[in-house]
């Protein structure tokens, strides 16, 4: 690390605009004490995914019943080790994506090209990078040094998982938090680079409303499907179309984060939907050419492309799919080979060449393909359903235990409605097909029977706006910290939903009506768009895109998530004037105790989602995941029944004060959306809330609890600090409970977990 500090030292000096805090470019050790403070309150609860460890040739080792492996590792440490591995994978993926983007953009725009994510509306353009490293990047070239640091840290974290390295579960957990923090840095670098270079919306609350959903695609035109996370190849396509006057003649439609970023570049592109829409879209036959870049892409995309006779172009060295590298070949030759079917796919690592090849191929292939699809007709479905052996294998491999056998049984009798009903809850994994002994294409049956519904999927999603403006932070910083805006709720992450994406939209609508600030990103942002109210409008059409109470703003793709963390950091820096540069611990302490923010990743699926979440934990932002998120095998749970866990210092006096379990958990899987909503309202409470703010927050918590649980929460007495905290309309019933619990008024401190922030000690 010393080398890294020397390398960036020049940049720090060059920045030279703010006094640095205590931890510039920290290794995991500098922030270990903060991690241990968090982990003391939010202890890991492990749920092993396997009794065994099989990572070295000593093994397999059985770790059940308190046994240790041949290396001496116990089950707790093994679980935290796997969590660290997952977070390193996630952080490495974002950092590598950032490196790839920065290299590409520097090649095109030059190292001295300025960082600009919001013009004059943003002074703190890199809040995460600055709070972590102390560096204020000004040019694209400055981003390289930041990535040097991130890559070094990720390598160190990954090395800790080797056999015979770290042996303590809490130290593994500390490294998990470090990997998460570094992940936020990598993501921020990626989004800063692409916003600056490609002219994405710059902190624009009125970013364009873009067409979303399968039904929004004009199937009379050739269509190019782009999927993944690295946008340059998709930009190559849009640029080629524009330069050749073809923009109106070809549909460019995206899935997952490439869809976000291409619509940030050009709102004429369309969003098909979240990542789980991949198979249904390919099998619909609509795409004439499929362009894959990196991350979250189905490994069998080439096989699926072949089935519909659509050529595939792979465009990332991370995802070559066994295809021949044609980057240096003549464009005419590549196009010719794809059109003739001589090759089913090619690897092209030049985004501009991808653009030309994709467009020319699509234009030639489309008239021949005539939207050839692999969806069976109704008669075939009914006929095959009659041959079903009722083995239930399809249901037993379905992640959501969908009642597929029942639906097939109805189909055998000519009733296809039950199959169509599965469409909304199906996550498109296609495991049912692999399990079927008759090789029935069950996923295609579902898609066919829901064809009408699919064609009606026409929505509007606001394109990713990027960062939050400084002026917005100034406007809402006070009400958030005092608790008068009840909270910031961020819906982020993947689409592994237990009951379909509509639950995301329902949760968002509930909280935006309650005047929380709602932030979205990634696949969750798309799911939020795929729901219309009684006026036929989506949430994005109904609510403003500002960072304010009762608004919904989409920050963008996965790598835009640091704008959410950045907003919390900027509240500490801009509103509360806390020192920003290299001052991570103090800022995280501020966020944990004062900023009522909660992240929800209802369909969290990937290792990236794990590292994104861990970046929020270290910053003091709790994260709720859906029930599938329990498969991350470790929760970070507070215990409200242990009073001793909920003491903080009063920074004014040094006195230790009980603050109640706020926030109660740091990482938590909810069983249902109803539970998630009650917990969201609860996790927005912070020790620093004013009495007015706490009354507002309690009002939401109690109201939701009554609605979904049918009673008053049994822990109200832990959250009421003063009589003036009690919501006025609930006074009688709450006072009755307080009397039963022998409740007494208590002090509201100036809360901190950091001894060094005490201004005047009691003598």
């Amino acid at each position, binding site marked *: 690390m010393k080398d890294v500090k020397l390398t960036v030292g020049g940049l720090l000096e060059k920045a030279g605009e703010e006094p640095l805090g205590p931890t510039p470019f920290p290794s995991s050790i500098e922030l270990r004490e903060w991690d241990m403070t968090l982990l003391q309150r939010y202890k890991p*609860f492990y749920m092993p995914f396997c*009794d065994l460890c099989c990572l070295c040739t000593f093994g397999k080792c059985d770790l059940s*019943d308190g046994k240790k492996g041949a290396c001496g590792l116990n089950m707790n440490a093994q679980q935290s080790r796997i969590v660290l591995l997952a977070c390193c994978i996630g952080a490495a993926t974002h950092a590598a994506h950032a490196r790839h983007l920065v290299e590409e953009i520097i090649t095109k725009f030059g190292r001295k090209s300025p960082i600009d994510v919001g013009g004059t509306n943003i002074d703190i353009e890199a809040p995460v990078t600055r709070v972590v490293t102390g560096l204020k990047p000004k040019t694209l070239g400055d981003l390289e040094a930041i990535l040097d640091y991130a890559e070094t840290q990720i390598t160190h974290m990954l090395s800790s998982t080797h056999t015979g390295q770290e042996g303590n579960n809490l130290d593994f957990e500390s490294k998990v938090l470090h990997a998460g923090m570094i992940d936020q840095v990598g993501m921020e670098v990626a989004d800063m680079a692409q916003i600056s270079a490609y002219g994405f919306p710059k902190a624009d609350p009125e970013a364009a409303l873009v067409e979303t959903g399968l039904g929004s695609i004009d199937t009379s035109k050739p269509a190019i499907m782009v999927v993944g996370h690295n946008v340059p190849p998709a930009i190559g396509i849009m640029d080629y179309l524009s330069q050749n006057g073809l923009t109106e003649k070809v549909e460019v439609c995206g899935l997952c984060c490439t869809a976000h970023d291409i619509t940030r570049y050009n709102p004429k592109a369309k969003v098909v939907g979240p990542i789980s829409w991949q198979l249904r879209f390919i099998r619909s036959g609509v795409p004439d050419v499929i362009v894959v870049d990196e991350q979250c892409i189905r490994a069998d995309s080439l096989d699926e492309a072949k089935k519909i006779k659509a050529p595939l172009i792979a465009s990332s060295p991370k995802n070559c799919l066994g295809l021949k590298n044609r980057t240096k070949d003549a464009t005419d030759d590549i196009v010719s080979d794809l059109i003739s079917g001589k090759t089913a796919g090619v690897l092209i690592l030049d985004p501009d060449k991808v653009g030309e090849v994709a467009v020319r191929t699509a234009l030639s292939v489309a008239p021949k393909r005539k939207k050839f699809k692999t969806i069976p007709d109704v008669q075939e479905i009914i006929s095959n359903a009659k041959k079903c052996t009722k083995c239930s294998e399809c249901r037993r491999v379905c992640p959501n*235990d969908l009642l597929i056998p029942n639906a097939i049984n109805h189909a055998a009798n000519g009733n296809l409605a039950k199959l169509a009903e599965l469409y909304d809850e199906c996550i498109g994994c296609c495991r049912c097909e692999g399990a079927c002994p008759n090789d029935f294409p069950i996923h295609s049956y579902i898609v066919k029977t829901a064809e009408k519904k699919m064609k009606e999927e026409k929505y509007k999603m606001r394109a990713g706006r990027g960062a939050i403006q400084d002026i917005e932070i100034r406007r809402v910083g006070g009400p958030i910290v005092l608790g008068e805006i009840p909270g910031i709720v961020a819906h982020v992450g993947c689409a592994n939903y237990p009951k379909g994406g509509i639950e995301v939209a329902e949760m968002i609508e509930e909280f935006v009506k309650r005047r929380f600030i709602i932030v979205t990103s990634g696949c969750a942002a798309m799911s939020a768009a795929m729901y219309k109210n009684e006026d036929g409008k989506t949430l994005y059409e109904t609510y403003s895109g500002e960072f304010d109470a009762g608004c919904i703003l989409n920050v963008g793709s996965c790598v835009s998530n640091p704008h959410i963390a950045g907003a919390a950091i900027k509240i500490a820096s801009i509103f509360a004037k806390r020192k920003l540069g290299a001052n991570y611990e103090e800022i995280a302490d501020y966020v944990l105790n004062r900023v009522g923010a909660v992240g929800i990743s209802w369909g969290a699926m990937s290792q990236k989602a794990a590292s994104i979440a861990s970046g929020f934990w270290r910053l003091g932002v709790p994260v709720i995941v859906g*029930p599938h998120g329990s498969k991350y095998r470790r929760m970070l*749970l507070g215990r409200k029944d242990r009073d001793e866990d909920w003491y903080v210092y009063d920074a004014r006096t040094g006195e230790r004060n009980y603050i109640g379990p706020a926030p109660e958990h740091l990482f938590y899987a909810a*069983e249902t959306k109803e*539970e998630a909503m009650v917990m969201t309202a609860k996790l927005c409470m912070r020790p620093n809330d004013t009495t007015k703010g706490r009354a507002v927050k309690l009002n939401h918590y109690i109201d939701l609890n009554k609605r979904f*649980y049918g009673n008053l929460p049994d822990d109200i007495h832990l959250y009421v600090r003063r009589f003036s905290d009690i919501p006025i309309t609930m006074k009688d019933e709450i006072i009755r409970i307080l009397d039963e619990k022998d409740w007494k008024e208590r002090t509201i401190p100036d809360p901190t977990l950091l001894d060094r922030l005490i201004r005047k000690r009691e003598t």
Partner: protein
Amino acid sequence: MSNIPWQKAEIPGPKRSIPLQRPETLASLIDKSKRPILIVGHRASEIDMADMKLIDYAINLANARSIPVVATAHSIKEFFNRGYRNATSMPVMDIANRLSDSEWNGLDNSGAYDLAIFIGIPYYMAWLIFSGLKHMSSRLQTVSLDGQYQPNASWSTPNISPLELQKFLDILLERIGENQ
């Protein structure tokens, strides 16, 4: 009656639950337990059992031996709707976390539980919770009563149909108390 995990890929390792082939075995376990607890998830009010729901059987089971009930997620409302007021509302992650703590004195502060029966939690979530308790709470016996084999529980019903589960529960309710 198969005792392959209901979700077939969910294979845990060498330590697996004992299949409850006969309801009498569970009746005996419950009778011998000093401190049983029943944890009921939201799916219990979704699963049909003839003219009743699984949650109705859970209430009957709780009443048969005054077993304290934890209702997870929003299932507490379903208990209220049925006139059952004694359930404690708690997220499933919270009750699992407390059960894994050997020093936790229970909902009534009267000591640790020795038998935890789970009904109506989503399969994959329950799978992980049973795993957590299997590894972190060696003195607690756990039971899965959903008719879908849970390999990480101490005891689990095998994979049986709703009708077979209904018969299992009917006999269980008849036999509880015979061993006391």
